[in-house]
């Protein structure tokens, strides 16, 4: 038996240990539940820990393994971001609005991973309705960064990222509308992939901005991300934007070498906003790729500098429309003793939503209102077209684009909460991929002041296999992804 403690092993290693009956799923699940509970006071990474259901699912998984009915992920424990509906389990989306909401059905992502045999340990904390870049907008309080609990873990998938970084679970689901998978992955030193828009079903994933939202994965390594993505991706007739394309064998594609890979370094991403120490780590990572036989090419995305303003029209507009469903009538928070129907709507929403969510609903309402629609919304959609075309053009010359994930490493809790625009600029390098709908991932590539730094790779539509292989090649040469904060080892 290997000496490595169970929590330090990745998804792939755990799956093979389970298959070989080295340990049981119940044993593994109990171990990780203990770690999740113990970490909760320090990290606040979870909204719900569903121990009883997890142990029951683990026992079923052990039965399946014993009778030879196991799949590649049978008995592997994971955590779901609390944005995914889970049947019979409280689903809050980080909001007071849904504090008492028990979902009557499973999101397709949850159903797919259940069918693959995974065991859900609980639901991860997140920025309210996925609106935030630091996990400080959650109704359930901020998540802390496992590398330094005075720092934010990034957001909006901060709970999912902290769980994986502290090795409380081998992997977690997450969502990315403007960087919510990649930025927390970078700030906590793990691997995170946002797939192509339409690759993973959005059914049962509580909507924020429907033309941008995409579900993805967080895990220690690209290999683990490949395994999890393979199990959750695929066509879903229940999501009208789901794309009917076969899911490639991502795990099998990992072996593709980086030799000959043409990597475009995005000129605009190395501007004055990028921390100089961050940039040094990135340049060192590019040298690793050169050593592996990749070619580095300078590339320009001339309109990408307008990503943040474009996003802060499109995303709030879609959010104001999506969040209109929370009316205090059918589900969610209702105010006490409403005077009339209008008062019921207004106070239920005013009390149920937090400050940032209200800010975005109002921004969206404004840009869609009569007289402003053309100047803001239509204009932003035209600029989105220009930004998207920049990516298409770049991919005529290179296989993937590379740059930073985030301008700086993790910042202190409270440092950016008073100025929304400063917070929004955290996503300056990640938003472009959402606007263009292309896949992108972040992998750890070094440390600055004992905090992790992320490298972002972006690929053309449906190039997840290529991105994962490029990340895997890097992780075969480096061990940044294997680093764990000392207290969580």
């Amino acid at each position, binding site marked *: 038996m290997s000496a490595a403690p169970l929590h330090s092993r990745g998804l792939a290693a755990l799956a093979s240990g389970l298959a070989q009956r080295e340990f049981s799923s119940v044993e593994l699940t109990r171990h990780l539940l203990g770690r999740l509970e113990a970490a909760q006071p320090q990290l606040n990474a979870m909204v719900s820990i569903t121990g009883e259901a997890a142990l029951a699912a683990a026992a079923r998984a052990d039965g399946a393994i014993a009778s030879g009915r196991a799949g590649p992920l049978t008995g592997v424990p994971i955590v779901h971001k609390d944005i995914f509906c889970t049947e019979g389990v409280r689903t809050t989306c980080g909001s007071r609005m849904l504090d008492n*909401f*028990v979902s*009557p059905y499973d999101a397709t992502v949850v159903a797919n991973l259940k069918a693959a045999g995974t065991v859900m340990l609980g639901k991860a904390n997140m920025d309210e309705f996925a609106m935030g870049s630091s996990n400080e907008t959650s109704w359930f309080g901020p998540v802390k960064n496992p590398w330094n609990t005075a720092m934010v873990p990034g957001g909006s998938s901060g709970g999912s990222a902290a769980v994986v970084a502290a090795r409380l679970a081998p992997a977690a689901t997450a969502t990315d509308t403007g960087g919510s998978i990649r930025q927390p992955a970078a700030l906590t030193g793990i691997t995170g992939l946002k797939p192509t*828009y339409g690759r993973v079903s959005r059914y049962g994933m509580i909507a924020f901005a429907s*033309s*941008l939202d995409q579900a993805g994965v967080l895990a220690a390594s690209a290999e683990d991300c490949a395994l999890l993505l393979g199990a959750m991706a695929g066509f879903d*007739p229940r999501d*009208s*934007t789901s*794309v009917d394309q076969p899911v490639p064998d991502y795990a099998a594609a990992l072996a593709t070498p980086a030799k000959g890979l043409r990597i475009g370094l995005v000129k605009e991403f190395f501007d004055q906003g990028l921390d100089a120490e961050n940039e040094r780590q990135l340049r060192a990572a590019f040298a690793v790729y050169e050593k592996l036989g990749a070619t580095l090419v300078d590339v320009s995305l001339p309109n990408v500098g*307008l990503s*943040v*303003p*474009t996003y*802060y029209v499109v995303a709030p507009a879609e959010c104001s429309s999506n969040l*209109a469903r929370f009316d205090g*009538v*059918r*589900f*969610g*928070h209702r105010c006490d003793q409403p*005077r*009339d*129907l*209008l*008062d*019921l*709507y*207004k106070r239920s*929403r*005013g009390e149920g*939503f937090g*400050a940032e969510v*209200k*800010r975005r*609903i*109002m*921004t969206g*309402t*404004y*840009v869609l*209102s009569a007289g402003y629609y053309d100047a*803001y919304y*239509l*204009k*932003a*959609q*035209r*600029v*989105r*077209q*220009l930004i*998207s075309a920049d990516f298409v053009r770049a991919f005529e010359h290179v296989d993937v684009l590379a740059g930073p994930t985030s301008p700086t490493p993790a910042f202190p809790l409270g440092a950016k909460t008073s100025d*929304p*625009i400063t917070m*929004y600029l955290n996503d300056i390098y990640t938003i472009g991929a*959402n606007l*263009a*709908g*292309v896949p992108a991932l972040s992998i750890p590539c070094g440390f600055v002041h004992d905090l992790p730094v992320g490298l972002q790779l972006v690929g053309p539509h449906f190039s997840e296999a290529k991105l994962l292989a490029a990340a895997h090649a890097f992780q075969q040469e480096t061990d940044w992804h294997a680093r764990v904060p000392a207290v969580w080892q």
Partner: protein
Amino acid sequence: MSLNRSDIENIAHLARLSLREDEVAGYVETLGNILAMVGQLDRAETGGIEPMAHPLAGLTQRLRVDEATENDRHALYQQNAPQVESGLYVVPKVIE
């Protein structure tokens, strides 16, 4: 683009959001700043550019055969409702 208190109150009304007195001033400032930041879009030359509503070009809305595929589960769904009576959602009186 600057906004004043009555602009914010009007937007909040359109969005069906009650704001506390002390919230309004903050939104006057931050929404004003966001709209100023968004104003950078004016720099982009977008003449003749099609607005992009969906990130995957060429996809069309799928249709399916018009037949019932779901069961009636209203009792289950209403377990999440703040107030129901005889299978109906209860709201304050709308018609006097």
